């Protein structure tokens, strides 16, 4: 049975800023611009915002910094930081706060200039004392270890991992805002530089700059704003570990718990999902989440993605913006999953538009396969 929160709130505005390269602009500037863009997209004023939900890689107290920068005195804040999945958690937390009347207009926001600031993944994550002496390059090492295990246990091949990157690029080639465009083949991925076996540089996400934001309100108000509302149908999070060496099974993520709970919450079955936005920090992520969310049986995702099955014209639309692999990945990518899902549900995705897209699943991943949060969004017709 669907949860009482289903359809009570909606995403009414989305905005981005400086995606790709934004030389000379700081993280908070990108976050601020994206926020103003999202507020304008909704047809609201900055002063309407009374709830702030934020996490970044550079702010210890993100909601304090955001409120100060934008000049807001929010009634409700949530700075939950569980890595890249933070924003899917914020989606759920904002829905709860709005529904309870703790705020009326919720702003979820993020910004990073990590590409032009240093060109490497910036993370506030503290080194894990039981791992750091062995000099892992986190998060890369963790995902490489998970990929090694998936290959060992299920016979998944490097070619199948490469298929994920190739499908992401094919979608990116239909998205004028994607950072990495141009032809990409399985052979290209296999021939690129190995950086942590079995992952090559093309099995890894981009390092870009970018800000993103979305605005949520309750359904009654959402109906009267500038853009068609995209309703929050349900969401759930799960977490089983922090450090990769304590993950109970490197081939099974907590998405296997968050996904079914989110779908139940939303009153939606997996076969209703027209678009799956799965956090693809590395090619192995997409395989794990396809399995754990139930799109295919455990161990079968390598075969599931073969032959362009998750690319344009395939059996399941996955990561239609080009994903973290080819569209944008400014440190924490989770909010961009929501941006693309809303764009698709509005029918505004141009050349890459998924036909009859009325229900989208967004799945955020944080840490080293640690935090898993699933959200379900739908058009007015699905409420």
């Amino acid at each position, binding site marked *: 049975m669907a949860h009482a929160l289903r359809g009570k709130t909606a995403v009414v505005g989305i905005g981005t800023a400086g995606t790709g390269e934004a030389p000379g602009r700081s993280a908070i500037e990108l976050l601020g611009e994206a926020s103003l863009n999202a507020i304008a997209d909704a047809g609201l004023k900055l002063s309407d915002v009374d709830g702030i939900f934020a996490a970044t890689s550079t702010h210890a107290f993100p909601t304090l910094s955001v409120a100060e920068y934008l000049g807001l005195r929010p009634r409700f804040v949530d700075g939950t930081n569980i890595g890249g999945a933070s924003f899917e958690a914020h989606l759920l937390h904002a829905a709860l706060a709005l529904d309870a009347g703790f705020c009326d207009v919720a702003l979820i926001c993020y910004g990073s200039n990590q590409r032009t600031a240093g060109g490497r993944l910036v993370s506030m994550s503290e080194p894990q*004392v*039981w*791992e*750091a*002496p*062995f*000099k*892992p*390059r986190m998060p890369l*090492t963790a995902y*490489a*270890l*998970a990929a*090694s*295990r998936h290959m*060992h246990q299920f016979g998944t091949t490097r070619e199948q991992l490469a298929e994920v990157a190739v499908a992401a690029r094919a979608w990116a080639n239909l998205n004028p805002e994607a950072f990495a465009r141009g032809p990409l083949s399985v052979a290209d991925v296999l021939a690129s*530089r*190995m*950086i*942590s*076996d*079995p*992952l090559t540089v093309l099995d890894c996400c981009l390092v870009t700059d970018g800000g993103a934001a979305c605005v949520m309100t309750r359904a009654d108000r959402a109906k009267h704003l500038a853009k068609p509302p995209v309703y929050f149908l349900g969401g759930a999070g799960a977490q089983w570990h922090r*450090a*990769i*060496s*304590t993950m109970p099974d*490197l081939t099974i993520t907590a998405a296997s718990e968050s996904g079914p709970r989110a779908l139940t919450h939303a009153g939606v079955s997996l076969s209703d999902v027209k678009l799956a936005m799965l956090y693809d920090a590395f090619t192995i992520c997409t395989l794990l989440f396809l399995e754990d969310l139930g799109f295919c049986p455990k161990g079968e995702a390598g075969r599931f993605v073969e032959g362009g099955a998750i690319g344009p014209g395939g059996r399941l639309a996955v990561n239609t913006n080009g994903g973290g692999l080819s569209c944008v990945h400014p440190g924490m990518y989770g909010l961009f999953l929501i941006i693309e899902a809303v764009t698709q549900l509005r029918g505004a995705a141009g050349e890459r538009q998924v036909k009859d897209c009325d229900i989208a699943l967004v799945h955020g991943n944080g840490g080293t396969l640690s935090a898993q949060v699933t959200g379900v969004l739908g058009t007015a017709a699905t409420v």
Partner: protein
Amino acid sequence: MTEAGQGPEATFRAFLKEGRFMIQRSASTGRHVFYPRVALPGTGERDLEWVPASGLGTVYATTVARQRPNPDGSSNDYNIAIVELDEGVRMMSRVEGVPPTEVKIGQRVKARIAEVDGAPGIVFDPV
């Protein structure tokens, strides 16, 4: 070895300095724990006692951290592995004595105390 007031992490490291690889085991449940904690995770039993680790384990997952080669062309690549001890607990470590690309999942390994990043730590050798 356990000094009064010293926590499990410091105790583990003190054992290592003495050349002993010790892990915790709950007296009532028999379950082993790693990394060292104040109680059994999930159930909270505080009856953890230090027991010698068998030192034997199996490679559970492995990767090679690829590095720029040295000026003479020799490799700086190194192994990072997750090893499952026969006691059922896992730890991050590295397998030495074979090229990093030759470390295989399922391979049997044995613990050795060595200097790891400037302090005593556990590494593994193939058996």
